[in-house]
């Protein structure tokens, strides 16, 4: 690209006269990279600081305002061998980061409190306070209180806040019994201390917080790292557009800098980066990422074009739309709103357990209190026993049971190229019974390739490939890629038709069927490859016809077979022509399919499946799939999907292969099994611990041992979620 890049939208101004920019850098992986980049940039006097973050593969550069253009920094970095991509820090990112730091602070405070209180408690249990007066014991209890009260006030906030929110909404979550247990334990201990009692539960309360905070912090960190990777990937494939300024100047700008009513130039072979109306120009566009339809549609002045379509033949000047009305995008947005409202409110397994668990615990505690009263025990003593029941049942293991599995499973998915967008996606993925695939870009790769390579003679292919290099047309690029051609021929291009060259006394042509007058030869190829676009190559005495289409993902057939064997029902729903959908579905062994499906019809189909009691995983990438993804029980999309679509998906998978979908399903099933197992483990723990507490034998030592024991068991069990595969 010869245009100067305008990156001003990414520049921050942290201080007067200072400009800064955040960049994602490709290929940094060691200390040498850090010093190459930092020293390389710092040689410039205008650069005030350059700091690489190796963990997140990001770079922050600060320079003196006005002395350096942002694009020069990118040039210098790529000169150093590190292509970099600017990105804007989203507010959601910094909120997540703040929450993570807050949890880490709470965790540190709780760890300090737990260690020191435990130090005091262990000395008491070991017999430090055997003196007749109990003065040492009281002193230790007071010290524990001095440490525990501020610790709980600070480190317990995440739980108290969440519990208050849940109660305000008149629901229960796990944080309600947790908060109640901690507060009661602390309150009881203070009263016990005041009354010179022999036992206090400061250690239990603080240790409980420590365990739970550890689980929550890990959970948050996993989510944040997933987000970071997603942001980096988004920055690397950030779309740019050529903006036409008044006076005819053309400049390449990031999409974030484009406003409604701007004029944008889209050349042949480029993706349209904006939604808008064609101001002038004539071309064919491939809207497969938008509608799923793979055969190109002609556009001319006044036609609507959408972001994500591929401009095939001619240059277009597009006026950016303010807000689309009465268009496909409008329809997609309306459907999306409805689908999001309709989305069945899934209740997380942990919350379901809490709803079941909290009343049982509270009733048990009350019954214990009344029971001891009836047995003739004083109300104070009965109350103490009732509160110890609450403390010992406080769902320490229960609170860890689900998050610990989630963290381990999300980590395992990450390694298999699946990134979860939502926390409960795991549980929903585990319940899936049906899978609905979109065809274009999901079952098939988003890039074009030559389908009938086997029918083409190698010398024709290499000649056609060299000729194809002269054209920017996507079909020609696919031919060039298939031939592995690197040396272009100095051919002449007729835009929208083809390229031709006169070489060694013969004329060679590569282009549309009409351009090469190859109608007769094209007919059998078209019949054999109904979903392909055709391109012809004519040397004087022979004609070759290329069938070019989006090939199926390399392992699609195998994975579909594996999923069918595992008992999933599989369907293909696509906006593409029925013939093309049928060909692709047959090739992959999918028996239920329909083509020409509109976005609304996709939702209707999903709703029909739902009312039949089926739980559907929707996998799609197009803009037209976005409402269906939102309406499905759970959804996934490839990383190449349209932006709007990706934000609606519960999980995003990377790479050319379809295997991550199968991995995700198998990991999710395993994770769900472990979650249920963990919940049972903590239920069994309670089965033993609660009778001890009800009978009044739950000393602080017993409580400490029982709690840490059950937490460790649950966490170790969760680690098994690492290995996948095998349904």
């Amino acid at each position, binding site marked *: 690209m010869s245009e100067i890049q305008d990156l001003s939208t990414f520049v921050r101004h942290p201080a007067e006269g200072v400009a800064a920019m955040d960049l994602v850098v490709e290929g940094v992986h060691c200390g040498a990279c*850090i010093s190459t980049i930092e020293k390389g940039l710092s*040689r410039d006097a205008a650069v005030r600081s350059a700091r*690489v973050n190796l963990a*997140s593969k990001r770079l922050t550069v600060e320079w003196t305002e006005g002395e350096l253009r942002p694009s020069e920094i990118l040039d210098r970095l790529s000169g150093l061998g590190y292509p970099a991509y600017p990105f804007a820090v989203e507010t959601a990112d910094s909120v997540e980061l703040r929450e993570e730091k807050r949890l880490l*602070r709470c965790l540190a405070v709780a760890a300090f409190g737990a260690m020191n209180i435990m*130090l005091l408690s262990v000395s008491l249990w070991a017999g430090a306070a055997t003196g007749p007066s109990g003065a040492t014991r009281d002193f230790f209890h007071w010290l524990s209180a001095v*440490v525990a009260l501020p610790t709980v006030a600070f480190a317990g906030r995440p739980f108290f806040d969440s519990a208050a929110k849940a109660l305000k909404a008149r629901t229960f979550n796990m944080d309600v019994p947790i908060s109640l247990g901690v507060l009661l334990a602390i309150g009881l201990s203070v009263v016990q201390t005041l009354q010179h009692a022999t036992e206090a539960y400061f250690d239990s309360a603080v240790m409980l917080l420590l365990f739970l905070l550890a689980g929550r912090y890990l959970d948050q960190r996993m989510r944040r790292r997933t987000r970071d990777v997603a942001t980096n990937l988004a920055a690397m494939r950030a779309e740019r557009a050529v903006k036409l300024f008044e006076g005819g100047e053309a400049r390449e700008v990031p999409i974030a800098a484009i406003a409604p009513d701007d004029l944008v130039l889209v050349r042949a072979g480029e993706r349209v980066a904006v939604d808008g109306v064609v101001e002038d120009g004539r071309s064919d566009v491939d809207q497969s990422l938008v509608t799923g339809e793979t055969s190109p549609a002609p556009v001319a002045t006044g036609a609507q074009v959408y972001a994500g379509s591929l401009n095939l033949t001619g240059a277009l000047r597009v006026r950016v739309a303010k807000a689309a009305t009465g268009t496909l995008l409008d329809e997609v947005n309306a459907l999306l709103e409805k689908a999001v409202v309709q989305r069945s409110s899934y209740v997380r397994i942990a919350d379901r357990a809490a709803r079941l668990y909290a009343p049982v615990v509270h009733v048990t505690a009350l019954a214990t209190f009344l029971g001891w009263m009836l047995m003739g025990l004083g109300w104070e003593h009965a109350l103490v026993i009732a509160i110890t029941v609450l403390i010992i049942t406080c769902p320490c293991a229960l609170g860890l049971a689900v998050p610990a599995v989630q963290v381990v499973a999300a980590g395992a998915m990450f390694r298999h190229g699946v990134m979860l967008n939502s926390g409960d996606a795991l549980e929903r993925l585990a319940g899936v019974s049906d899978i609905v695939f979109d065809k274009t870009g999901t079952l098939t790769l988003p890039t074009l390739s030559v389908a009938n390579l086997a029918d083409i003679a190698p010398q024709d292919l290499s000649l056609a490939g060299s000729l194809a290099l002269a054209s920017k047309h996507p079909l020609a690029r696919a031919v060039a890629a298939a031939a592995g051609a690197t040396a272009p021929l100095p051919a002449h291009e007729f835009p929208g038709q083809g390229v031709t060259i006169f070489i060694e006394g013969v004329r060679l042509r590569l282009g549309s069927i009409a351009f090469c007058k190859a109608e007769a030869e094209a007919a059998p190829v078209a019949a054999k490859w109904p979903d392909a676009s055709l391109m012809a190559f004519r040397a004087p005495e022979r004609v070759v016809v290329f069938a070019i289409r989006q090939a199926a993902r390399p392992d699609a057939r195998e994975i579909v077979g594996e999923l069918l064997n595992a008992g999933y029902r599989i369907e293909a729903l696509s906006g593409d022509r029925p013939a093309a959908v049928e060909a692709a579905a047959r090739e992959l062994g999918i028996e239920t399919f329909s083509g020409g499906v509109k976005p609304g019809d996709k939702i209707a189909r999903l709703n029909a499946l739902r009312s039949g009691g089926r739980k559907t995983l929707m996998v799609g990438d197009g803009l037209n799939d976005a409402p269906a993804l939102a309406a499905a029980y759970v959804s996934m999309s490839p990383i190449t999907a349209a932006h709007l679509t990706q934000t609606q998906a519960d999980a995003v998978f990377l790479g050319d292969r379809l295997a991550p979908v199968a991995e995700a399903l198998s990991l999710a099933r395993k994770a769900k099994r472990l979650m249920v197992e963990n919940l049972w483990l903590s239920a069994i723990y309670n089965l033993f611990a609660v009778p001890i507490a009800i009978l009044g034998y739950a000393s602080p030592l017993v409580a400490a041992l029982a709690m840490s024991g059950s937490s460790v068991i649950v966490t170790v069990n969760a680690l098994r979620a690492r290995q996948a595969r095998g349904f």
Partner: protein
Amino acid sequence: MNVLVFLVPLALALGALGLAAFLWALRNGQFDDLDGAAWRAISDDDLPDDAPRQNHV
């Protein structure tokens, strides 16, 4: 026994000092890039360089 009255709170105070140091380090961004810090420790920043370094954050 009376020695406990001094020593135990002293131990607590030392622990609190450690906590304060950790919270300071956290706030100061010392934990933002754990991978990078490992490499920076062995970089030869302190050796004379052919080009003068112009910045230190």
